[in-house]
């Protein structure tokens, strides 16, 4: 029926043809009319629309149906074809077929009348203002209601994907239909899949979080402490806190650490830590603070005695000037990353305020903290007992020699970038080795046995010893250091990466360079009883036999809490088991890169970090 009509119409339209798609051209060349196909489909659709009319209409009315979008979509699709067909379609919509035309028209009129009486119509009418033709509005609503029926294709209202409409297709919250997937996600009753997915992801996140904590070294099985819980809650709601007046200093310090870790310390939150009665101000992350904030520290805390500022980029000369102008005599000064402070200002600080200074720690300075400043220490700071210069690019042997004149020093920690000859360290130890409790040299590839011998000869009260990355010290030197040494057992030893480096023949070590078997045995014989932390990371020439002897059945190291033996190649499952047997209070054992450690049962409450298992890098003893 309509096919004949449309062909006639098309001819009548007088060859006014819109842009045609390649497919239409192709079909036309095979004597198939794309338009014809479309119109036939329309006709079928209309038939389907009218047949189950009663129930269909009801359904439509119940669900506040259909999408203006849908109507619009069809409309645009239509206009792509020639205008004639659009016209045809428009007409076809209301006047449904030639045969039952009058009947259908009546029906449609009925529905339209119904619509006119409905609330929706009234609303629309009000909204559109005085749209003169009521019929037009009613008809528009009628068209909207003729939603795609089952079996038709439709675009999903949410994901815009094309899908086939079924009787089960759900309505989108703001009009249109949803594809089955979106419909499922929408369903409030059927929440199971969503929840499940959530739980799984939470578990995975948790495991990673715990592993990251283990690697950070602050993991404990069981619940967090109440204080930690409170501090975490506080950090989340720090904007609500007004002051921390009643809290103990160590609690405030913990809060400061937590806030800094989350980068929450700024000009506002800094006020929480600046109490007039305080003596200590520890700022662990000052990256967001400005010069004015630093000045405020000195204004608000007149009794300041210990000051620690990390990432103190804005700690400049004028701030130092301000501090020098106040009656503040620091006992401990810790400054990290203050690159803009000039050398002359450092000297001025030491001259004016050095009298009271007992601890000075300077980290990460490029150019302005050098030999001259260190040479001032002896005269300016008679009470200095702790000195740390870390990541420094300026201090050379001259400065280190000058440190030897500061007789009050008990703790020295150096991490310098310029090369310093071992003789300089020897003269330093000659000068003040007797009283030293801490001696730490980080990254000193050129130091040799002379330094070890000097330690052996001069140090009598050492507790903490660190020498890392030495490429010249030999096993013999370590043996000499620890045998017959009149020093009490050490508490902390770090000989990380003191080993032979030769890429051509990595396995052979004819001169026994680095900490090897004998040195390790001597070390444990001397200090094992009291040792708390031991780091022999990458001392790879310690043999399995030496480990087995040191951690044999009858030997107990009661205080050892943390042991780092990563990249010691000879460590086996048996050695690890022996270590757990010999160290009852061990909390953490690091075995990264120990490839012979394969299958080990970890005792309850201990951590074995660095085993490459499928589970991840960490085994936490849970049996």
């Amino acid at each position, binding site marked *: 029926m309509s096919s004949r009509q449309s062909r006639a119409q098309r001819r009548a339209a007088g060859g006014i043809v819109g842009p045609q798609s390649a497919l239409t051209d192709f079909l036309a060349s095979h004597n198939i009319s794309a338009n014809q196909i479309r119109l036939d489909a329309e006709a079928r659709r209309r038939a389907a629309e009218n047949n189950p009319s009663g129930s269909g209409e009801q359904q439509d009315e119940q669900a506040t149906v259909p999408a203006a979008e849908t109507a619009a979509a069809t409309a645009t699709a239509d206009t792509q074809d020639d205008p004639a067909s659009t016209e045809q379609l428009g007409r076809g919509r209301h006047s449904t077929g030639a045969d039952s035309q009058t009947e259908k028209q009546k029906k449609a009129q009925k529905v339209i009348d119904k619509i006119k009486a409905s609330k929706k119509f009234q609303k629309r009418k009000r909204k559109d203002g005085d749209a003169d033709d009521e019929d037009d509005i009613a008809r528009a609503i009628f068209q909207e209601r003729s939603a795609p029926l089952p079996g038709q294709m439709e675009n999903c209202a949410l994901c815009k994907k094309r899908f086939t409409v079924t009787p089960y297709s759900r309505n989108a919250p703001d009009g249109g239909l949803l594809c089955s997937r979106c419909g499922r996600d929408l369903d409030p009753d059927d929440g199971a899949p969503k929840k499940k997915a959530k739980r799984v992801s939470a578990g995975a996140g948790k495991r990673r979080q715990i592993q990251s904590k283990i690697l950070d070294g602050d993991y*404990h099985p069981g619940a967090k*402490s109440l204080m930690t819980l409170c501090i975490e*809650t*506080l950090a989340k709601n720090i904007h609500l806190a007004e002051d921390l007046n009643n809290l103990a200093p160590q609690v405030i310090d913990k809060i400061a650490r937590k806030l800094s870790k989350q980068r929450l310390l700024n000009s506002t939150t800094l006020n929480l830590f600046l109490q007039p009665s305080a003596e200590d101000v520890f700022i662990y992350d000052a990256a967001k603070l400005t010069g004015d904030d630093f000045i405020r520290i000195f204004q608000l805390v007149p009794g300041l005695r210990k000051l620690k500022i990390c990432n103190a980029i804005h700690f400049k000369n004028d701030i130092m000037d301000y501090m020098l102008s106040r009656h503040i005599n620091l006992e401990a000064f810790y400054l990290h990353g203050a690159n803009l402070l000039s050398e002359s200002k450092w000297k001025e600080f030491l001259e004016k305020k050095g009298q009271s200074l007992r601890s000075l720690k300077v980290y990460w300075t490029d150019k302005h903290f050098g030999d001259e400043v260190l040479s001032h220490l002896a005269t300016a700071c008679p009470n200095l007992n702790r000195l740390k210069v870390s990541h420094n690019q300026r201090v050379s042997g001259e400065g280190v020699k000058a440190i030897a004149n500061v007789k009050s020093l008990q703790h020295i920690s150096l991490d310098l970038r310029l090369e310093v000859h071992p003789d300089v360290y020897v003269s330093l130890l000659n000068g003040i080795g007797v009283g030293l409790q801490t001696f730490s040299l980080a990254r000193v590839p050129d130091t040799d046995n002379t330094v070890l011998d000097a330690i052996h000869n001069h140090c009598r009260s050492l507790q903490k010893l660190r020498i890392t990355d030495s490429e010249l010290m030999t096993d013999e030197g370590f043996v000499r250091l620890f045998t017959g040494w009149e020093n009490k057992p050490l508490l*902390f030893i770090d000989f990380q990466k003191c080993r032979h480096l030769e890429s051509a023949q990595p396995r052979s070590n004819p001169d026994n360079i680095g900490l090897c078997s004998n040195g390790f045995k001597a070390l444990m014989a001397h200090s094992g009883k009291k040792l*708390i932390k031991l780091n022999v990371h990458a001392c790879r020439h310690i043999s399995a036999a030496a480990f087995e002897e040191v951690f044999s059945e009858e030997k107990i190291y009661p205080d050892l809490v943390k042991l780092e033996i990563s990249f010691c190649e000879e460590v086996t499952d048996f050695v690890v088991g022996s270590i757990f047997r010999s160290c009852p209070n061990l*909390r953490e054992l690091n075995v990264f890169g120990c490839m012979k450690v394969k299958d080990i049962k970890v005792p309850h409450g201990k951590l074995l970090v660095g085993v490459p298992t499928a589970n991840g890098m960490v085994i*936490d003893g849970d049996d």
Partner: protein
Amino acid sequence: MATKSDGPSNSKYITMVSSDGFEFVVIREASLISPTIKAMLRNNFSEAKTGRCVFPDISGLVLEKVVEYLYYYHKNVNVPYVPDMEIPVELCLVLLEAADYFQLDSVTVGTAFRSMGDTLKF
């Protein structure tokens, strides 16, 4: 604990009393997590004899939360994945004070490690 004598000194439970008179009966084992309470229940202090610990500085509201924590900790000893206990924001600061008072700061850290931290601290 002592096993010979009868009465409250070796009861399985102790009583914690807040400043406003609220009483909480707590399993002794759970309460011993706090070094402060542990010290109170040692030797011949009156608390040890009566099994009754009075905290005149701590309100019932806060003590309730502390007791809740003691049980929460007790229940989760050595459990690898422990969900955090909910801390009401408005109680956060008072609870911090209480945590400091009950020394519930780093319960699980070994004593040797802690003393080490002290000696080497800045």
